[in-house]
């Protein structure tokens, strides 16, 4: 049974995933790869929600729904972000994040 696994392991998994995502966000040069890292982060969160729901609060589906809405919102976020990235790409012909620094100081 799933109870044998232990909630901590889920949490450690999600935490690691979360920080891997953060790491990706911090170092990936391509805007789209950064976006992917964000997806990792969101997924990590979802794992948390679902695990908590399953382990401790099975009487309702709050975690489950939360995860669902997160997925939905992640989708819109990605959609808009990609639209913006593409419009940026049209102008500067690159999506290297390090070159997106016209405004500074």
């Amino acid at each position, binding site marked *: 049974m799933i109870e044998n696994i232990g909630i901590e392991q889920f949490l450690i998994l999600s935490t690691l995933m979360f920080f891997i995502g*953060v790491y990706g*966000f*911090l*170092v990936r040069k391509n805007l789209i790869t*950064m976006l992917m890292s964000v997806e990792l982060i969101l997924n990590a969160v979802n794992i948390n929600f679902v695990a908590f729901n399953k382990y401790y609060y099975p009487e309702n589906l709050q975690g489950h729904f939360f995860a669902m809405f997160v997925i939905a919102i992640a989708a819109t976020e990605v959609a808009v972000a990609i639209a913006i990235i593409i419009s940026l790409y049209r102008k500067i012909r690159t999506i290297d*994040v*390090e070159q*997106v*620094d*016209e*405004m*500074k*100081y």
Partner: protein
Amino acid sequence: MMNDSYSYTVAIPLILFFSFLIIGLAGGKLKPIVSGIFGTFFLLISTALSYYTAYSYFFVDGKSNGVYQQLIAYDSLWLQFTDKLQIHVGVLLDPISVMMLVVITTVSLMVHIYSLGYMKGEVGFSRYYSFLSLFTFSMLGLVLSSNIFQTYIFWELVGVSSYLLIGHYYERPSAVAASKKAFIVTRFADMGFLVGILLLSSFTGTFDFLKLTDPNGSALTQGSAISFLGLSVMTWSMLLVFMGAAGKSAMFPLHIWLPDAMEGPTPVSALIHAATMVVAGVYLVARLFTVYFFAAPDALIFIGYVGTFTSLFAAVIACTQTDIKRVLAFSTISQIGLMMGGLGVSGYSGPEGLGYTASMFHLFNHAMFKALLFLCAGSVIHAVHTNELWDMGGLKKHLPVTHIAFLIGCLGISGVPPLSGFFSKDEILTAVFEKNKLLFYVQFLVAGVTAFYMFRLYFGIFWNKQREYHTKPHESPFSMLFALIFLSIASTFVGLIPFSEFVTPDLKPFTSHIHWAIAIPAIIIAVIGLVLAFVMYRKESDLSGRLSGSLGILYRAAYKKFYIDEIYLFITKNVIFKHISAPIAWFDRNVVDNTMNGIAAITNFVSMRIRAFQSGQLQQYAYVMVSGLVIIVLVALYFMKT
């Protein structure tokens, strides 16, 4: 003690204040001579009132049980510090103030009349008269003060009138400098005076002269017990008050302003810098004599020494000066020194108070003959348009009246009987002789030197060689001569007044006699001085030149006024200006101000340095966010209590 019958005396100064206002405000629109006549007229009223006051005080009702009363003729509250400590403005009549009334109004009137001729055609004639009124007002207010703070108030006012009058020829840089110097030096002294008053009042709890000088009052005993640096507080405060007096009366080392003050019109010198204002210091010491005598005898001795030293010091310098007004100025300093010396050795009651009486007597006489001398000098200058002794000579033919008047003045100051100076000087010497031999010998010497330099002046101007003059010297107009004649007569006869019948420290009259044992040597030494001057300056000779040459450095030092001016100049220019004021200004601009600018600059600098945080790199922003988050978590979890 209030006395309503004298309440009109308050008008004596006030008339002149109105005169000042009227002439001052309307002056520009009046014809000059009208202003002069106005001023003279107002003063005439004051003079008449003063004479009447003197008459009724001394001869009618001033005495009660054989003692002169100190009458408060007028009194009004001017400013209140606390319930007890108040400044009153009032009129205090006692022998010395009444005497001073006479002196001031007389000399001032003479000067007013004299100036009608002397200042004729000068620019600023109205201004001159308005300031003369202001001065006379202030001086009268000063002597009539019933309150030491009132004295201080008018003390300052005479100072400023003196400033204004010295600087009458304000387009002359030397006059401007002299007026400034006079004001600042006396102001410096007044600072001492003010602190003295503060000290005095804080221990006695009053400013009131009557309370302060009441020999049986509590004021005198308070403060005497507390000592500071070995002297009682009372001594300190009285020394500080004397500092003020010394400033006004040009005592060494605060005398330096007086010779320069001769830049003013000569009548002003006669009035302010010979007869009245400069003796205010003496008057102040006399006014507080009781306090000095009972509570601060050390200060009194100090005054005696300072006065005597100054008198010798100034007399020596006077021998070497060639500007006739400066000679007279130093002579004034010297004479005031004698008065101070007299006060310094005086006792309190009965004949012991001779020094005091003599000093006041000398003040009175000196006012007359010194005013006379100055007015004569004015007359001479008026005639030859120069102050320089060696540019004059042989004027006795051209200026006969002035000549005689000057001679009378010279004899008077030299102490030749029966002119006035003889009597008062004799009394001073007597008093000093009884108290302090050292001072006596010095003063005795001064008497001789005085005769020498005065007659040096006299022979130099009126005898000696006839010089080339641009215009032929001519005798002055009548208004001037009138003053000369009047003062000559006065100088001749005022010595006969039995002063000890009127003015004594304990207000009880006594009778004094001429002490021939001292008088005769004094006459002799005066005559020696006179003869010496006659020999040297009767006609052109190189005797004086050789003498001064043989004295060498001593002569040069005296000629340079013992370099006191230079010391002051050094202190003001080099020490205060260059090494205090300029550095402070620099410090303010560069240190204090730059600290403020520096704070702004640091802010800007920091602002520049941290701009790298805003690098435009999205990932760096994210990095800051994440690490910030981690740090907050770390701190919150491990460094804060929950």
